[in-house]
């Protein structure tokens, strides 16, 4: 398919608040992107009319239970069949920040053996505790499986901001080792927090902004078509969004976040 034929659905519910800038990232690259309220999707639309699905950032339904849990339940209740088909057809699903939390709560990630009935991981309260908005460095760990980072060289260090209070990626203690091995075996590990020079903080704040296990910032499913991450690539899309763009006489045109959206569109162009 051609770029201009790519149809992306950015879903939102009450409390979602990063839909507009996420939509902008796709339209800037020439794709079609539509923002629709979940209620409208259920009533008048089908996700299967779209080539890709995005759960953007925010506080869906206030996140009054665990972050992402309410929207995940709602999505599964209303869209389970369509969602399964969507994933099986290897159409891409992207979850950013709250969207990542939704994908994990819905069992779409890490999805070692397909969509799991119960969450296999969690995004727990930050350590140190509290909401935090800051720019972090991420190291690209994927060896080519993740379709959202195909255009990014392995080990590239990227500069992208985080803004969340619940972003500490965890497995249950007893599964930690086994699941981590699976992430590596299946090439599901995508981003880890690191220093500017690419060194891992081993959980240490502030380089690891939330205490995430193994400094994990983003993972994909074994097929590489469902991807969730805590950092916000849509906030690092343009050069003028970067925190230090004013340092140079000529600001860069784009930031590292653009690579994620570009890779996804390239995949769709080749695949469908």
């Amino acid at each position: 398919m051609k770029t201009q034929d790519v149809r992306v659905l950015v879903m939102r519910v009450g409390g979602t608040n990063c839909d507009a800038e996420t939509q902008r990232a796709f339209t800037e690259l020439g794709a079609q992107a539509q923002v629709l309220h979940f209620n409208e999707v259920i009533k008048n639309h089908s996700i299967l009319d779209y080539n890709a699905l995005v759960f953007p950032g925010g506080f869906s339904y206030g996140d009054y239970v665990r972050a992402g849990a309410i929207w995940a339940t709602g999505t599964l209740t209303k869209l389970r069949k369509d969602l399964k088909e969507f994933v099986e057809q290897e159409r891409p699903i992207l979850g950013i920040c709250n969207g990542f939390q939704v994908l994990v709560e819905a069992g779409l990630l890490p999805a070692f053996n397909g969509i799991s009935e119960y969450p296999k991981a969690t995004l727990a309260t930050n350590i140190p505790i509290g909401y935090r908005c800051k720019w972090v460095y991420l190291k690209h760990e994927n060896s080519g499986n993740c379709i959202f980072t195909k255009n990014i060289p392995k080990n590239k260090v990227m500069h992208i901001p985080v803004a969340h209070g619940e972003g500490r990626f965890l497995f249950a203690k007893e599964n930690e080792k086994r699941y981590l091995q699976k992430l590596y075996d299946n090439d599901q590990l995508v981003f880890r927090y690191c220093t500017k020079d690419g060194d891992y903080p081993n959980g240490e704040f502030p380089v690891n902004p939330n205490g995430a296990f193994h400094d994990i910032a983003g993972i994909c499913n074994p097929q590489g078509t469902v991807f969730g991450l805590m950092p916000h690539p849509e906030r690092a899309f343009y050069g003028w969004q970067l925190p230090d763009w004013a340092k140079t006489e000529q600001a860069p045109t784009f930031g590292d976040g653009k690579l994620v959206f570009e890779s996804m569109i390239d995949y769709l162009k080749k695949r469908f």
Partner: protein
Amino acid sequence: MSRYVKKDVPFELVEIDLKTADDGQLIEISGELGIGLNLTEMKLVQSYFSRKKRNPTDVELQTIGQTWSEHCYHKTFKGDISTPNEQIRSLFKTYIARATEELDPDWCISVFEDNAGIIDFEKNYAIAAKVETHNHPSAIEPFGGAATGTGGVIRDILAVWADPIACTDVLCFGPLDYDYSKLPAGTKHPKYVYSGVVAGIGSYGNNMGIPTVNGAINFDESYVGNVVVYCGCVGLLPKDKFVKDTRAGDVALLVGGETGRDGIHGVTFASAELTKESEEISRPAVQIANPIEEERVKRAINRLRDAGLGSAITDIGGGGISCGTGEMAERSNLGIHVYLEKIPLKYQGLAPWEIYVSESQERMLLSVSEKNLKKALEVFETENVKASPIGKFTTDGILKVTYKGQTVAELDIDFVFNPPKFVGTTDWQPPKLDEPTFPEPADLTKELWGMLSMPNIASKESVIRTYDHEVKGNTVLKPLQSKYGGPNDAAVLKPLPDSWKGVVISSGLNTNYGKIDPYWMAASSIDEAIRNNVAVGGRRIALLDNFTWGNPQKPDRLGSLVSACKACYDFAKGFQTPFISGKDSLYNESPIGPVTPTLLITAIGITPDVRKTVSMELKQPKNSIYMVGKTYPELGGSQYYQNKGILGNTVPKVRMAQAKNTMDQITKSIDNGYLRACHDLSEGGLAVAAAEMAFSSGYGIELDLNKVPRTEQMSRNDFVLFSESNSRFLVEVTQKRKTEFEALMKGVYCAEIGTVTNDEVMSVTGLDGKQVLHADIPELRRRWKSALGGK
């Protein structure tokens, strides 16, 4: 017999016997009902009902009490004031609005009229701006008070059909290390208030997805009993979608949250002094926040606007539905019939008056024509927002309220919106203050260390990082600059995807100067707000004023308020920066006295191209550092003196012609691309500004005090380093552009005073040619960052 007669209806309704009440009894009634009306006002009410030949109901008296409160009607600013030299009819008209009227800029679309000021931006888009105070609720319940303050100001933006794009917050607390044993009864410790307020603001803005991009935190003993919380919001609106055209027959549609007992008498509470009983008595006056509800309301209103389904909108804030319905009818010269039973409640058991005045949050009022009603209700349903037709606009100019078929209020709108004038007298005497005499300290490096960790100067990173300042992805210049989180002077947003035009948001606050002279305090705040804006590339600046003062019935408080208002006129006019909106909060007094006069000036500028924005950190070794503006021996109220426990009296002034000229030339230098860095000089003066520029960059700086443009009598190194004279900037220029820059700056005080170095050291040569300050940059950074817990 009791003056309160319970009516024979199946709900709580009380008639109050005003007919026979004498003066003392009128005051008693006002007190017993908690409506805060004074004798003159109560007498006017009495004569109104005697003309009507009946007694009022509790709903009616409550409605009048809410509408006539200082908070809703701003009686003091509209009142008659006698000063020793003159009679002032309306402070607001004479000083605040007059500057705008005389300047009459064609880019001001709506000033002082609507819930927010509206100015032109780009093509079909305008900017709306509003700043609110939420002091008293925050003193009682810091988290809820601050959160609902943010929620309230966001609704003001929604109430002009704008989409909120940024929030600001300026906070004043008592010292965090305040001695517990000195706390008056019923007063919460500043540390508790601080953490609650900060969390409340962050929670509301973050949950709604509106970036909090600009603010300030100030500490002073006078805020121990009465915290000051300013919440601001800026919005973007398509000009052709603005509509304010309620017609008779239109439906009054209440949307958003349900109504409960939270926030009863919020406005009368806000218009009184805080006492040790406030905690107990006024707890119900504090509202409860639900930002997700407001997020949904925002979405629905944006859709309604784009589809053109509403005929007018206002927010339900202070005074609740009683004020909202009355105001909407009044501004269209209509009447309204409200059916109280149609208002959705959180729980049963509320008396009609409680339903009518409750300030439960996240509610908006719209007028919608009959033919658009069905479509409008569909929009709200899709967004999961409750929408209830609660009344109808009429032609008769009467505010009629019924509950389950029974009339509970019937008032002439003309009467409700014409309270008696406030009358006040002023008596302000300048305090007798001495300029201190102490020898110049031998070690100025240590002085600088001490100043960088003063709470008013130290990094606020530990607070700012808890606010999402990046959401919406439009923040071009952030509150924390680059790697080391430098303190940028203003925030720059790029709200439109297809335009490089930016919105520049900054603020000015100089509470310490007000202790010496409120006139120069106001002038300095205006200068500071404007120079912060100009420093990053802002121009065509509009101002917002927010006064937080003590009880205006006390002549000294009123006198200082008048002085500050005069400065507002003089300097808004002089800088050609019109006021577009404002809000005052008076009666900020607690058992430890009034708050120090606190004027916040918020400046909203624009920049034609965000790519030309200049940040504050040094950029490149070997570049030259220039000082723009002149330094005077003005250390009264300075942080330098404060660090020594002194106030002094040489308060900084603003030399109007010189100040305007300086700002204009800075704008031209930015447009010509001469400035690599630019930082305004404020608290802590030259030394602090230079240190901030250096430790935010990773480079060093060398300065020579002898080259600083200054008055002849300035012979002390510490005074040149720490004077807080207004209208000054420190700028960085490359060697290549020096000649051009210097040519442009002819006619302005400007001199090359140093260079950027590669060695992470700040070094200053004194007036006698000897080194007077030598500091390691990482050490300066550490002291500045860690004082308030930053990392």
